[in-house]
């Protein structure tokens, strides 16, 4: 499965890449902000996107609105420090399929990925 990691922090991309690799995901691409992600989704064709919220140039919420606006249905999980309920609701309304609050354990990220993919497959 192809996974696109979108986060301006190289540290967080590395951590998430490590967890994904342990979970058996091998095709992983990275984007550093929403603008970069809009380019990479076309070139890479991800089947799952992990998306940070606060990023320079284009943040995650703007990305998801543009991405869903283009008709894309690929599952997107927001992985962010934005933990308020209002933010979660805003992100879900904008089109994300699931939500992970930083800090997270590898288990939580793995569970949310499985949960999201199962829901999409149902």
């Amino acid at each position, binding site marked *: 499965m192809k996974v696109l990691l979108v986060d*301006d*922090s*190289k*540290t*967080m991309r*590395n*951590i998430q890449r*490590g967890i994904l690799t342990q979970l058996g995901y091998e095709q992983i691409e990275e984007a550093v902000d929403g603008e970069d992600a809009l380019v990479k989704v076309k070139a890479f064709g991800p089947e799952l996107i992990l998306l940070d919220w*606060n*990023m*320079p140039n284009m943040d995650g919420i703007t990305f998801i609105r543009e991405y869903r606006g283009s008709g894309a249905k690929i599952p997107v999980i927001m992985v*962010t*420090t*934005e*933990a*308020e309920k*209002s933010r979660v609701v805003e992100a879900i309304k904008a089109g994300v399929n699931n939500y992970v*609050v*930083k*800090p*997270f*354990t590898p288990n939580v990220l793995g569970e949310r990925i499985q949960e999201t993919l199962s829901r999409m497959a149902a």
Partner: protein
Amino acid sequence: MDSQFILPFVDSVTNVFETMLQLEVQVGTPSIKPPDAKSHDVSGIIGMSGDVEGTVVLGFPNNTAERAVAVFTGMEITADHEDFADAVGELVNMVSGGAKAKFTNRKVSITCPSVIVGSHHTVTGRKDVVTIHIPVDCDLGAFSVDVSIRDAAAAEAAA
């Protein structure tokens, strides 16, 4: 400063270090930061705006920061490595994000983090806002969270 804005930082720094670094921390008694407070070698800084505004500084001695980054990233990197500041920035980002989620009935935005690396620097917040110094200790060494924020929503309502 109201304790409702300090306790969330105590909880958040504990949660971030326990979850991401598998490290137990001991948080000391928060106090008003004195003018002659110890300087930092590494500072991760986040700005807050909206109903609560100001800055949050995660300040470390160099050795503690390098050890924390090594545990966090799984890589032994020194403070002059290009990825070092990114890791420190992500730590202060998570501490600040976790804290602001616990501010009751306040809508707050946080900036992308800035990181200062340089021996014995000090970070000064707004002159009209008291800085609360939260000392933290762990197996990697001592560090601090300095919170210099004001309740802008309450100040506006009182004006």
